[in-house]
């Protein structure tokens, strides 16, 4: 049989269904983000670890000009090395019938028939190569899906200027290409224009003029920790020096591996911040609500205690409110969380080529988030339940001691001014200052919601500004052309004579190691000629940073990594050419938000390489902002062109991908913060209204209209909430700064953009949400049967 106390609890809950439901929703958001994000994290991490392990991701890779295969066995004998394998990796251009723009691709050799020792591929569709002739290729699955390519379909690949007819043998996913970025630079995948193709080792060796040799070495070491691995790589670089080492990196620094790791870290952060805020709000609000319930049920408590119910039964009864809210929170939260998990894993499957990435249930995560969902309301109401259980039967029957009057500190502080305040202002100020706890909860909720709102809007603006900075202010070319081999002045003449082309500027990008004492970084140094306008290093305000005749301009983050400032000198060692180490002065700093960058005059850079006036890419400006595919086709027909890309396309892709995803993410956050403010304000205002229903009744009797009364009672709410919004804007600025710092990695950064109009808009939006809540409160006030309050005895 259900006990009468339980029945009463159920009926009480039913009577407060509306306000409790609002609370449950906030709590459910917390439980959902806790469980959902943590589950996504586990799904992604497990799929990644499994893929890396099963398909033998190497510990390092070394690219070089040409190393004879016999050198591999020498390397394998080195003590720290477990095994090495050589392969060919070379840029390619693909041409598909019906696709007017060429596809930039990376061609990689795979042994046939034995599987590679490292960086094996997972066959999604089709089969392995039938022979080593090079008729067949494996293509990465995302590219195949983007063009609906199936095993048996044909396409052309231009490798080292020669065209090869290829048949798709199968589609694959590769552990080193989980996140495939366009080779020309870019921070979002473009599967329709970027491909990775795998070809039989012997065939690719021939096509790349690497018979009996390789240009990339993969390997595994006994101790893969960072420092020993770096030491081993130095050792290997020395051994391979005669073969023209270009770059050697631990696999953990490969772009795809880094992106995935970054994403996992972000998921972990999301799984912490949001739940803590939501559950704290639930605990706070329920604390206030139960305090009010206990105060209004003193007679009931006295009666049941007099009838012989134990204090523990009373305490249990009141904790039942929290338990009910907690359980509803958990049910809604877990279902919402599993929806978040499904949706996010689905989103990741579009971005990542990762086999076995499916949502799995994690009982321990569910248990953990369920526990948090129940514990938060219980902790919030422990004190009130204890107070209820501690009431002695006799004193519980008596009305609670009357509310204390008395002065608030403002009256002592500014007696002269206070005297002139109308009673309504005094009423508001006293109500705020006499209920510090209630005011604090309201303040804290609005503060947190506003800070989150400011941060969301500032970050959205920052993303826009970042895209504008990188793609409009810094880069102003319409087409960028990558060259297969460094070329001289003659080439520019040829390009400028092409139809549509208005201006041509050469660029020379050279991989270099920059170092300053113990600090070392390998970056691409970009050389530009005097009078360059199509690409300019700029500072955060968009002002051009001029290039010195001698020396470098570094991106701010690179300077930070190297611990240098303008005026300092860095050691610069090019990874191609004569590789002579020189000391270069740091002339100035520029701001970039993607990767690390260094700039120099092209003439200076080519002198360092020991060659005169060479460029390995060319920027074009055209008479139309978007020259369309015809110019690109024209460019791609030339054998010296590795690939050409329209800036409009890169920009559109970036805006689409980032804009859409961040838009959705921050849109949810804005709604969430609005919901938090709305729910928080509504809950505390309703509590305040219930506590003061007698005052409201009195005002009504005295002839105050509903609007006049609302003015007085809303005043309290507006005062505290306005303070919450104002301080929240300040908190949001601080929060935005710390998030910008947090997201400032070598790979990707966001500008710290705090604009007055964004702060104003956040503030106004929050006031809008607050006013919406007050409108609901007004509805409640208007429906209150104020005459009833005089019929009940205190």
């Amino acid at each position, binding site marked *: 049989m259900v006990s009468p106390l339980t029945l009463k609890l159920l009926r009480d809950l039913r009577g407060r269904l509306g306000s409790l439901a609002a609370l449950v929703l906030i709590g459910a958001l917390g439980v959902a983000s806790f469980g959902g994000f943590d589950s996504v994290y586990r799904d992604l991490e497990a799929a990644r670890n499994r893929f890396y392990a099963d398909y033998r991701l190497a510990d390092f890779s070394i690219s070089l000009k040409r190393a004879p295969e016999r050198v591999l066995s020498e390397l394998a004998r080195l003590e720290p090395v477990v095994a090495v394998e050589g392969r060919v990796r070379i840029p390619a251009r693909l041409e598909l019938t019906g696709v007017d723009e060429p596809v930039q691709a990376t061609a990689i050799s795979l042994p046939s028939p034995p599987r590679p020792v490292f960086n094996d591929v997972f066959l999604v569709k089709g089969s392995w190569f039938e022979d080593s002739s090079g008729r067949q290729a494996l293509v990465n699955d995302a590219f195949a899906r983007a063009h609906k390519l199936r095993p048996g379909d044909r396409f052309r690949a231009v490798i080292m200027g020669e065209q090869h007819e290829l048949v798709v043998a199968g589609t694959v996913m590769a552990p080193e290409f989980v996140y495939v970025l366009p080779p020309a630079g870019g921070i979002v995948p473009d599967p329709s224009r970027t491909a990775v193709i795998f070809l039989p080792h012997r065939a690719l060796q021939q096509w790349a003029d690497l018979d009996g040799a390789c240009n990339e070495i993969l390997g595994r070491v006994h101790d893969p920790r960072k420092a020993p691995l770096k030491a081993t790589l130095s050792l290997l670089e020395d051994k391979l020096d005669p073969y023209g080492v270009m770059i050697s990196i631990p696999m953990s620094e490969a772009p795809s591996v880094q992106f995935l790791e970054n994403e996992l870290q972000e998921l972990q952060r999301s799984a912490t911040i949001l739940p803590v805020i939501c559950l704290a709000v639930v605990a706070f609000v329920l604390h206030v609500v139960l305090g009010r319930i206990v105060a209004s049920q003193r007679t009931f408590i006295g009666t049941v205690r007099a009838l012989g119910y134990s204090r523990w039964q009373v305490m249990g009864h009141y904790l039942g409110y929290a338990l009910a809210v907690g359980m509803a929170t958990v049910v809604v939260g877990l279902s919402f969380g599993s929806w978040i998990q499904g949706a996010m894993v689905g989103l990741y499957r579009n971005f990542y080529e990762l086999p076995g990435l499916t949502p799995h249930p994690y009982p321990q995560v569910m248990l953990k988030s369920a526990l948090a969902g129940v514990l938060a309301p219980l902790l919030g109401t422990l004190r009130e339940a204890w107070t209820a259980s501690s009431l002695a039967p006799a004193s519980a029957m008596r009305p609670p001691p*009357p*509310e*204390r*009057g*008395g002065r608030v500190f403002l009256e002592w502080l500014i007696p002269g001014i206070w005297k002139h305040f*109308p*009673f*309504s202002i*005094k*009423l508001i100020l*006293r*109500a705020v200052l*006499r209920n510090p706890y209630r005011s604090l909860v309201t303040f804290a909720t609005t503060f947190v919601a506003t800070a989150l709102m400011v941060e969301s809007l500032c970050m959205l603006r920052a993303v826009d500004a970042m895209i504008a900075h990188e793609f409009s202010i810094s880069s102003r070319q319409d087409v960028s052309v990558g060259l297969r081999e460094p070329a001289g002045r003659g080439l520019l003449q040829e390009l400028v004579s092409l139809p549509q082309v208005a201006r041509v500027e050469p660029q020379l990008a050279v991989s270099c190691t920059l170092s300053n004492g113990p600090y070392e970084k390998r970056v691409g140094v970009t050389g530009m000629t005097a009078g360059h306008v199509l690409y300019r290093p700029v500072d955060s305000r968009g002002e051009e940073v001029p290039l010195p005749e001698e020396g470098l301009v570094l991106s701010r983050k690179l300077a930070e990594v190297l611990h240098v400032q303008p005026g300092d000198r860095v050691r610069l060692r090019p990874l191609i050419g004569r590789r002579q180490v020189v000391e270069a002065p740091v002339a100035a700093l520029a701001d970039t938000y993607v990767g690390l960058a260094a700039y120099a005059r092209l003439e200076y850079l080519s002198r360092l390489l020991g060659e005169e006036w060479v460029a390995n890419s060319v920027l074009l400006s055209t008479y139309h902002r978007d020259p369309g595919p015809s110019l690109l086709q024209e460019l791609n027909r030339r054998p010296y062109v590795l690939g050409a890309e329209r800036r409009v396309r890169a920009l559109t892709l970036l805006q689409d991908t980032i804009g859409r995803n961040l838009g959705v993410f921050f849109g949810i956050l804005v709604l969430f913060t609005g919901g938090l403010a709305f729910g928080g304000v509504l809950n505390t205002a309703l509590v305040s209204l219930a506590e003061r229903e*007698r*005052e409201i*009744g*009195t*005002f*009504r*009797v*005295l*002839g*105050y*209209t509903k609007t*006049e009364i609302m003015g007085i009672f809303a005043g309290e709410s507006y005062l505290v909430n306005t303070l919450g919004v104002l301080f929240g804007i300040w908190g949001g600025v601080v929060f935005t700064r710390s998030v910008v710092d947090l997201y400032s990695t070598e790979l990707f950064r966001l500008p710290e953009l705090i604009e007055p109009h964004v702060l104003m808009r956040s503030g106004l939006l929050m006031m809008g949400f607050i006013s919406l809540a007050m409108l609901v409160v007004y509805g409640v006030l208007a429906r209150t049967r104020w*005459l009833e309050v*005089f*019929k009940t*005895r*205190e």
Partner: protein
Amino acid sequence: MKQSLLEVKNVSKIYQMGEVQVPALQDADLEVREGEFLVILGPSGSGKSTLLNLLGGMDRPSGGNIRFQDQDLTRASDSQLTSFRRHNVGFVFQFFNLVPTLTALENVQVATQIARQPMDPLQALRMVGLENRADHFPSQLSGGEQQRVAIARALASNPRLLLCDEPTGNLDSTTGRAVLRLLWDVNRKLNMTVIIITHSQPVARMGHRAASLRDGRIVSLTENKEPIPPEEIEW
């Protein structure tokens, strides 16, 4: 013959309590005269508070007709009733209903702030003998003092009609008598119409007239040729 202020004709009030209809007042006829001291008498549940609420424009009757001079309260809108209370009625409650976070003076200002021709709030407190307690909060005042503040608040807006619902119900006899004296003075000196509801039979002797209610009906209406001041009343 004094002029009629309020006219109640054939008024009834039925409350819907869940699924049951509870008749709180039936076929009530009453005329309230300008400047009179009217006592409404009756035991708990007899319908006297219901009648008072109807007279004060706090509620609308289910049937019948109530007029305040030219104004029909029966069909008045919510805002018309609010305006009626604001400008014509002062209320005194059994439980004082002072705003606990306002001082005595500020509680009076609650009424004067919205009145058309209010008294000076301090003068209202002076009338009830509490000018030196003006800065005290309700929790710092005795029950009698709180009720006097409530009376000051009711008077301060210069209403035509003062309605008192069991004004002594929560006070000891000495304090209660003092409060009744105050109401007596208000009636005599300010010529304000005062209606008191009480369940105490002796109080009826203070009034010019006394109406008795039982089970929702006015069972008698007696005229007092010589009302006696509260000090002479036997409790």
